[in-house]
């Protein structure tokens, strides 16, 4: 479904991705973990197409996106939805208008009532049907993320990417978001990629977890395999210990 082959990326002279290889299967939820600044978000941006790798290949649904033109790239992106860390709602549009935005822009043949009905359905999926008229500034952090998720799924994507979906949320709200991610996989059958350093979230939602370190995936496996990993870097990261190879 998604494949990154030997991807390199340098930003401002700093090597971020250094030969990253990743293979994500259709319908699974893959969680990328790692310390801040190790290239998790850059990996995500390379998959979405917001960044191009310096070298290597990014294949999405059998298509190499490295040299794609704008039209092809847009066509592929319409099969993806992204939940940004902050929700990234357009601040002058209310929740309904934000969720409706991709439909209004790309499916101009839809009537107002059809758009309204789709938006309402998506808001119900994220349990936000009561907040459609609120502005982004009136929403809590969790509500913003749920609204962002409703917008991400409004075009019925085949792939959903989550960038730190639980950061800045209290444990209860974090679990609500985790449940939503699981339900998206169950109800919509989507392939999900989640970038996080919240291990409880990773264990809960992941079919597989990959740890990124120095621009490469150094360990990959199910939640149990990661919990029982003998790799000292992985062990230190998941335990949160201040002593170990990550802090040397």
């Amino acid at each position, binding site marked *: 479904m998604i494949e990154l082959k030997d991807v390199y990326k340098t930003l401002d002279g700093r090597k971020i991705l250094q030969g990253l290889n990743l293979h994500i299967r259709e319908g699974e939820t893959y969680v990328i973990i790692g310390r801040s600044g190790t290239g998790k978000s850059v990996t995500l941006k390379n998959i979405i197409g*917001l960044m191009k790798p310096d070298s290597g290949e990014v294949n999405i649904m059998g298509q190499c996106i490295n040299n794609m033109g704008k039209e092809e790239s847009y066509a592929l992106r319409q099969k993806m939805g992204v939940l*940004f860390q902050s929700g990234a709602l357009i601040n002058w549009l209310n929740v309904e208008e934000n969720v409706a935005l991709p439909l209004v*822009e790309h499916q101009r043949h839809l009537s107002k009532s059809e758009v309204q009905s789709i938006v309402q359905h998506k808001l119900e999926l994220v349990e936000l049907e009561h907040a459609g008229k609120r502005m982004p500034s009136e929403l809590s952090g969790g509500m913003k993320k749920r609204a962002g998720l409703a917008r991400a799924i409004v075009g019925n994507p085949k792939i959903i990417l989550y960038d730190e979906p639980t950061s800045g949320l209290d444990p209860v709200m974090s679990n609500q978001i985790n449940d939503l991610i699981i339900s998206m996989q169950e109800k919509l059958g989507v392939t999900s990629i989640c970038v996080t350093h919240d291990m409880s979230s990773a264990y809960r939602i992941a079919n597989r977890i990959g740890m990124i370190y120095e621009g490469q995936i150094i360990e990959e496996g199910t939640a149990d395999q990661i919990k029982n990993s003998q790799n000292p870097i992985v062990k230190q990261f998941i335990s949160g210990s201040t002593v170990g190879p990550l802090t040397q």
Partner: protein
Amino acid sequence: MITSSKQYIGNTGRQIVEIFANMGFICRLFWATMKCYKSLAFRGRVILDQFFICGIQSLPVTLIVGVFTGMILALQSGLILKDYRLENYIGVVILLTMCKEAGPFMTAFILAGRVGSAMAAELGTMKVSEEIDALEVMCIDPVEYLVFPRMVALAICAPILIVYVNLLGVLGGAVVAKYQIGLEPVIYFKRILIYMSTYNLTIVFAGLFKGIVFGFIITSVSCAYGLRARNGAEGVGEAARQSVVYIFLLVLISNYFMSALIERIFGS
């Protein structure tokens, strides 16, 4: 000493490269925005919103500036003209100065400070809070969605604001001419009307063309800096500050060349 000289040369070189890179980005953005003309009808509502924000909300400050610019011009030119017993021509002097230079120039500066900085800050905030990325992901071209409506709105409302500034400048001038120079408003306006009916006024209205160009400059520069903002709130502030500086410089430089061109084509 040698090290600090090398550092100075290095920094200067970097700044020059950065200026050219920014200019290149501004030109590319302008061209990309021009290519969005097909979406004019679809973006009508947003253009109207922007017209309200850029134009209508700028009216109070623009009008105050217009009146006082006319008053200053009337005072300074009136005192000199009075010495030569030419005070009857104050109105003509103010009309020409306002329409040719002061009106477009002052309007551009107001729009740069009020609208340009706000545009840079707004787009900069959207950039650092990933809203621009979100648009890209939704396959919505940020240039078409954000820059194009702003550019169209400002290119329309800048000439309209210039007309208001010019009118109020002339009116403000009449007040000063009456109470400080002692020229009756009837003579003031009569001389203006005689001038307008006698001479080719293309050159006067060419000032409105400047307004359209200034509208393009203000939007291109402020949106370019906004779209390239980085590093959170600090980066947004920097984008707003730099955009105003560059707009001022570009307005000043382009104004000279436009004036020279207009005088060459239409001048006597």
